């Protein structure tokens, strides 16, 4: 086992605690500001940063010291709130889960695609949430409420574990080429949240959700490109969940 002292004296300069280093990072951002222009444009900054700086903090550095008009959403800055979904070097990710050294020497940042851009990296989330709300994303059970708790076996609980991780960041839905081409498609995130209830033994409205998802805006628009699974910052197997919902609809088994 390495002692703390050994860690600190380690020659491996990839690790935190190694002697201070800086790297140069060029950040290219697609800008949009309806108060200035109806066209988007590109801005570029080159900064010295610590290799372990989170990309969201690099954006802060730009905002705080170079251009206060740069607009993006963020809150927790460690991958749990889902605010800072962006297209980073062509792939959707949370800016707080990538480090400067992951993207150096140059990174291109754009808003996530398929939702109206409101300013810079901020998009209109309402169409995304409309899709979410359409799948009845809450437990439905009209068989009378127990006075205490319902029972559920660990195996039944495990059945829908993966899809409970969703933080509604929209990385999956806005990485989907079907969604880009047709914003009536309900999108992966809504299906993930439907899956979470369809496969929950306590829920009784699976058929209602599957009816919604079998409409032409629903699950069969999916062409299994796996972009959603690649994009998910929570590691949810989104495509697998979609396939399970498709199969449940086809065979009425869930």
């Amino acid at each position: 086992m390495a002692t703390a002292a050994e860690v600190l004296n380690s020659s491996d300069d990839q690790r935190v605690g190694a002697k201070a280093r800086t790297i140069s990072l060029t950040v290219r951002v697609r800008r949009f500001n309806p108060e200035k222009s109806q066209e988007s444009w590109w801005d570029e900054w080159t900064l010295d940063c610590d290799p372990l700086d989170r990309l969201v903090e690099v954006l802060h550095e730009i905002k705080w010291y170079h251009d206060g008009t740069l607009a993006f959403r963020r809150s927790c800055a460690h991958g749990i709130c889902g605010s800072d979904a962006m297209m980073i070097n062509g792939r959707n990710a949370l800016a707080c889960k990538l480090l400067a050294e992951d993207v150096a020497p140059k990174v291109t940042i754009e808003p996530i695609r398929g939702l109206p851009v409101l300013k810079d990296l901020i998009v209109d989330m309402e169409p995304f949430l409309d899709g979410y709300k359409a799948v009845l994303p809450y437990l439905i059970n009209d068989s009378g409420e127990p006075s205490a708790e319902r029972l559920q076996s660990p195996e039944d609980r495990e059945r829908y574990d993966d899809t409970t991780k969703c933080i509604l960041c929209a990385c999956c839905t806005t990485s989907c080429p079907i969604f880009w081409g047709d914003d009536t498609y309900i999108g992966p995130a809504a299906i993930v949240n439907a899956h979470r209830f369809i496969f929950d033994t306590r829920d009784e409205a699976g058929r209602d959700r599957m009816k919604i998802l079998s409409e032409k805006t629903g699950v069969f628009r999916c062409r299994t490109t796996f972009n959603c699974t690649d994009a998910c910052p929570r590691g949810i197997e989104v495509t697998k969940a979609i396939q399970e919902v498709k199969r449940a609809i086809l065979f009425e088994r869930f």
Partner: protein
Amino acid sequence: MVTTHTYDALVIGGGGAGMAAAIEMSDRVRTAVISKLYPTRSHTGAAQGGVCAALGNVEEDSPEWHAFDTVKGGDYLVDQPAAMVMCEEAIPAIYQLERWGLPFNRTPDGKIDQRRFGGHTAEHGERPVKRACYAADRTGHMILQTLYQQCVKRDVRFFNEFYCLDLLRTDDGRTAGVVAYELATGELHVFRAKAVIFTTGGFGRAYKVTSNAHTLTGDGPSLVWRRGIPLEDMEMFQFHPTGLARLGVLLSEAARGEGGIVRNKDGERFMERYAPTIKDLAPRDLVSRAIYQEIKEGRGGGPNGDWTFLDITHLDPKVIEEKLPDITEFARIYLKVEPTKEPVPIQPTAHYAMGGIPTDVDGRVVTGENEDIVPGLYSAGECACVSVHGANRLGTNSLLDLLVFGKRAGVAAAEDAIEADLPALPANATEPTLEMLNRILERDKGDNMADIRKELQTQMFDLAFVVRTAEGLTKMQEILGGLRERFDRVAIGDKGSVFNMDLMEAVEVGFLLDCSDAIVAGSLVREESRGAHFREDFPLRDDANWLKHTLAYREDDGSIRMEYKPVKMGPYVPMERKY
């Protein structure tokens, strides 16, 4: 342009407490939730370990034991009747979440599973007890999602990305509504209502290293403080010992629960010297102070000598992957450290405000020694002080607090709104807000907002930290005076109306300065050491003089006046706090 809306009741803040309240209210009265974030972005979602209730599903337990642990954990500054309420209502609150679909982990026979957490014991400290209900290591996330789902089901009206900037009160002190700034357009909105609940969360961003989100800037406490409401026990701020170095991201107490060890730069297990019996399982305040001492005596590591190390290398890798996956992921992603092979650099991280807006057990905001009710004003969650956490909060009690008191505040506010008439708006309701915003917007050159905030956070993390002295706190007061002068000259780069996040951040800095003023004032007057508040110049608890709550008031001239109110006692007589 100002738009006026009229509701029966308002909730300010869309996190756990706010949504717990809104669920109760939406069936009873016309309710709106005003939140500067989309509700699912709230920091309730970052809570990891669990939410406790004496269900007794795994081991024998009782709400009374839970209340005792809460009172003792809070170093007897807890209002004991409030702790009783919380611990008794914990059980129905957890069952309610289960019926709403929260995916709790289950026992082999299908019940809600429970696990151990620091300070939770059976039979008044006899032995550890499994009391924390949990959903993997994302309990807060699941609570936030479940509450949001129930809000969607009830079609609760949310005003998302609306930033509340003023509390409106009539001349005779009745709550009349709020003023909010719509981030998407820059327009002001007046919301009239008969009852308003503040549930805006904490203010950990007053400190350099914090587990709190960027957005946790004490908006609610500052707003009401500016309108004459006192803030209670603001000196009681919890520093969690195991924050990820540099970032402050929380590494759950579960790490030490599973056998993790804290070491200094020489690899020494230093907690053996500070807490010979329970060592690394000592409560949060104690471990944070020990770390502080190690660093002060030159045994900290890292580039600035201010890190210690959490060592879990001796644990079974399977246990690490299954029970501590978040910690492993954070260390790997953010520090490039492999926790199964090497110790993880940590720092105490500003974590939780025990103090806040004073309320009774129904969320009613109360002022003064006699707890006079402020008509129509409510608060719950971290921004409130009931007080159930006293001088030090036990792990898993924060999620419970927001469930129980969010609900109670929602019920009380709804009943209030049914009974009351709509108060008239004060004249020129939006004028103070407009003036505040325009002062910032109109200045072309001035002090940089980020510099002011950085200075504040750095100094607070030094002078109003784990160990405090009169000298340091007095210095901090002077620094705060200087920062306030600089803030009066603050200028920002964005002058626009659409998503002016620059403006929002500048306003937040003002709120952080207010909260810091109150933290420092409370820390300076409380000449004793209790729970999270440790005064090097007054190292002992002083029940004769300080078994009481502080109430800080902002006076018109900007000074701070202190009042006090007694702790509500109950069956538990203060004893020396040993574990």
